[in-house]
């Protein structure tokens, strides 16, 4: 079989390594097939540099019309799978047309790349950053190799961060007042707050706080909205009486959250909501949803 394999194999092996690959933080990314792989982590304005090795197999030579490396920022809609929309595209030609007989190493560098959007894997949309190496050939097709990397952008704490406070209820049935200490939370934040029961005439079984992600894709009439519940956290067990105040303390760490994304390249938005759900003994649900903004706080400023 070996020769067969050899026959269909690409003529050369291309590998991409980053300059500080060993020290750079790796983060897990879920691939299409469900596998989790570790990819290096970058942020906007970073210089992305490294080396590309091209090694022809078993003394074969590779004729080519040039070798280039591209840095692509792509958005892929799942309803339009395979069709990438590139919002960022940088190209470096790293070799002129010729032949490669033996292993050859090309350094490359994209300095201070503007990468405004974060890598995102949603239900209906994916945003990814990738290095694409192309060995252009006339016939037999070009040889292409991809290397994904992850981009995360950190922001300082917002200057204004009001609490969320609201009184809601159903007339003569249930009146509650809830308060969350902030409207903007970083991804490792803790939601603190309390639920104050002003009037309880229904038999409540329990109360949960849900964290919901609302992902909307497309625009106008084609807008597609997908909502997922990422966390369901029980706040209260049993039926409270009037005047009872229930503490809220939800750690965000255990959940797989991303920052809120507003209208990314006119393609999609990701919003987060806190959904307070009260369930009565007949399993009726009473809920109130409040949007919160999630942001990624610079690690150093934590703690």
């Amino acid at each position, binding site marked *: 079989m070996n020769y067969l394999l050899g026959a269909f194999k690409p003529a050369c092996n291309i590998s991409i390594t980053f300059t500080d690959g060993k020290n750079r933080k790796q983060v897990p990314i879920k691939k299409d097939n469900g596998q989790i792989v570790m990819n290096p982590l970058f942020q906007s304005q970073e210089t992305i540099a490294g080396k590309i090795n091209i090694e022809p197999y078993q003394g074969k030579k590779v004729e080519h019309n040039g070798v280039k490396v591209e840095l692509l920022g792509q958005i892929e809609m799942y309803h339009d799978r395979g069709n990438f929309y590139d919002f960022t595209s940088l190209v470096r030609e790293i070799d002129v047309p010729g032949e490669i007989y033996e292993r050859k190493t090309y350094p490359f560098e994209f300095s201070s790349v503007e990468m405004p959007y974060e890598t995102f894997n949603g239900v209906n949309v994916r945003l990814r950053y990738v290095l694409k190496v192309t060995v252009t050939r006339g016939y037999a097709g070009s040889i292409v190799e991809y290397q994904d990397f992850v981009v995360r952008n950190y922001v300082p704490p917002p200057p204004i961060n009001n609490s969320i406070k609201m009184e809601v209820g159903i007339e003569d049935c249930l009146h509650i007042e809830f308060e969350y200490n902030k409207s903007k939370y970083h991804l490792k934040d803790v939601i603190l707050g309390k639920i104050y029961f002003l009037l309880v005439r229904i038999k409540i079984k329990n109360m949960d706080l849900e964290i919901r992600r609302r992902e909307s894709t497309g625009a106008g009439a084609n807008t597609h909205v997908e909502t997922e519940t990422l966390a369901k*956290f029980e*706040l*209260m*067990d049993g*039926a409270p*009486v009037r005047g*009872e105040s*229930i503490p809220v303390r939800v*750690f965000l760490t255990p959940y797989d959250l991303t920052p809120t994304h507003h209208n990314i390249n006119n393609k999609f938005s990701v919003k987060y909501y806190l959904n307070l759900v009260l369930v009565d003994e007949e399993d009726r649900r009473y809920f109130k949803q409040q949007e919160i903004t999630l942001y990624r706080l610079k690690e150093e400023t934590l703690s």
Partner: protein
Amino acid sequence: MRTLAGVEDEEKWLAEGIAGIQHNAFFMHRALDANNLREVLKYSALMLSELRTSKLSPQKYYDLYMRAFDQLRQLEIFFKDETRHGLPVVDLYELVQHAGNILPRMYLLCTVGSVYIKSKQAPSKDVLKDLVEMCRGVQHPIRGLFLRSYLAQVSRDKLPEIGSDYEGDANTVMDAVEFVLQNFTEMNKLWVRIQHQGPGTVREKQEKERNELRDLVGKNLHVLGQIEGVDLEMYKETVLPRVLEQVVNCKDNLAQYYLMECIIQVFPDEYHLQTLETLLTACTQLMPTVDTKIVLTQLMDRLSNYAASSPDVLHEFLQVEAFAKLSNAIGKVIDTQLEMPIVGAMTLFVSLLTFTLRVHPDRLDYVDQVLGACVVKLSSVPKLEDARAMKQVVALLSAPLEKYSDIVTALTLSNYPRVMDHLDDGTNKVMAMLIIQSIMKNDSCISTADKVEVLFELIKGLIKDLDGTNVEELDEEDFQEEQNSVARLIHMLDNEEPEEMLKIIYVVRKHLMTGGSRRLPFTVPPLVFSAVRLVRQLEAQGGDIAGEDVRATLRKIFQILNQTIEALSSVPCPELALRLYLQCAEAASDCDLEPVAYEFFTQAFILYEEEIADSKAQVTAIHLIVGTLQRINVFGVENRDTLTHKATGVEIFFPCFPISFLLNYFPNRKLTFPFDQYSARLLKKPDQCRAVYACSHLFWVDDLEGNKDGERVLLCLRRALRIANAAQQMINATRGSSGPVTLFVEILNKYIYFFEKGNPHITPSDIQSLIELINTEMQSDNGNTTVHSDPFFTSTLRYIRVHKQKGGLMGEKYDPIKL
């Protein structure tokens, strides 16, 4: 849902729960062994999720809880050892809060919290505050109660109290108190809430279940009571007001009752005393359905025990005016709780009284005040019929009796008889008996007429028939016992001062005479003896009082006696009356009141003549009369003529022997009338015989020289012999054999008696022949060859023999007798 299910289902659910816990505990232990924190948390949370069930009754839930609790101990050990899980405890404290379900989360948090405090990486108070706050999330009553009780348990040894390892800054005790108070408040709220859940039909079951849970709540109060460093100030300012606020505001029967009970039990007496006002105010604010009386009773019991514990604390009671406050509070409670049954009010009064007696034994006015309040309450209700209430009133009345061994004290309480008026007859009697018993026990002497008057007013239930008493219902034995007690009581009424004593007797008599025929036989004798005692006392001191007065007084007394005994004749109770007359006669004789003695004898004989019909009684009566007569020496010769004259007059109406005998006998102490009339009236020969020989003594009184008529004695004895002979023959005729020789032997003994006394008419030969007669009689017992020896006879002979052998004066006398 749970309430609709049967017990079997519940068993099943419990079994399932236990299985769930065991299953997850198994995996948890495996993870523990592998030091795998993530798995440990996962399985412990799963295990604890079993506690989320709503299907179990508190008892079953407790079972489940205990199983989880055991596992949590293992978990805590693991959490303590950082090398095993590799996480600083503070991180662990966060990590366990990631659990999605609140109940497992909170159990884990409490467990880690306990470790956290132990590590001293954070102040105990902060962790505890956080825990107690976060527990609010569990609002289900049963689950919440158990969770908080878990918190209380793991935190118990970690409170930042003074002297503990976790002592904090200056306010450390306050922090500890604050934590316990908060946990207590929340638990109580949950506990109270149980009753508002579920349909009304299962209320009873819920009450029962709640009762089972109460100790979980009460435990907090115990902890509060044990916190080191809670001083009076803090208790007064913070602890008690906060607890009471919760108690009053929860507006729940069971909780209010139980918690008040707890408060009273767990905090020191001294604190109760100093916060009495606050505590009592709270009592008056409880729900009307709460059994406040028990609460108050317990409080007062505790306080009185405290007072009894040491005399040093008594001044504190005075300082805080404990009595006034308690008394006020009780008044208020009784006024406000209209539904409270009378027994409740009475119980309260009893407690208050007990308290008063213990704490202020010197304040009779307090005691009277309590009784007064009781009277007011009793007057406001219709006649007391509740047996339990009655019992309480008895207790109320008994308390002062027990306390003041001197009944006299009780007699000065003006409200005492007024309370007794409210008892029903039966109870009144019981009470009266108690009073008497108390007097007896303490041997206290009632020494003034006024007191006697009060006392008899108190025990009037025993003295006379009260209106509406059904006589037939009375138990004969009880009645006798009661009257015997009264009789004994009469002997306790005594005064050295004759004047006062006389007054007492007047009072007693006045009361006793109302007693009716059933009581008189019991009550008259002691009265008579009491009076006779006075008579003898007066007689003994005679000269001290002006002669005229004494005699007049004596006459008066005898007059009363006569009337008193006369009352017995209506009973009728002749034998008793006869005895009493004879007693009086003797007393009168000792006082040299001849006519009085004479009168008494007259009365005695009238009774004998007319009333005493039973032959045995007659015999006894004769002996009594003879015995008394023999001792009496009052009748002087100077009265002879008058008496003889009187005698003839009387004789017309009573032409029988005794009267005539008496009248003839007294004046000159000489037998003027034969006995046979008197004794012949007796039915049986032996009785006749014995009566006759007894009479012989009347003619021979040792101390009285003028009263020795040997001839008459011999006459009596001969007559007795004749009767004995006749009796013997009668028996012989009917049975064919002569009976025992007892009568002869008895007569022989009389012979010997008078012989020894020197009666010249009794000669040795008389005795000799009598002995022979007896011997003959015994041998003539035909058909019986063996000599039947009579022990009495044998002893008599032995007596004579002994004297003969002894020699001397006696021996010489006996010498002529041959045996």
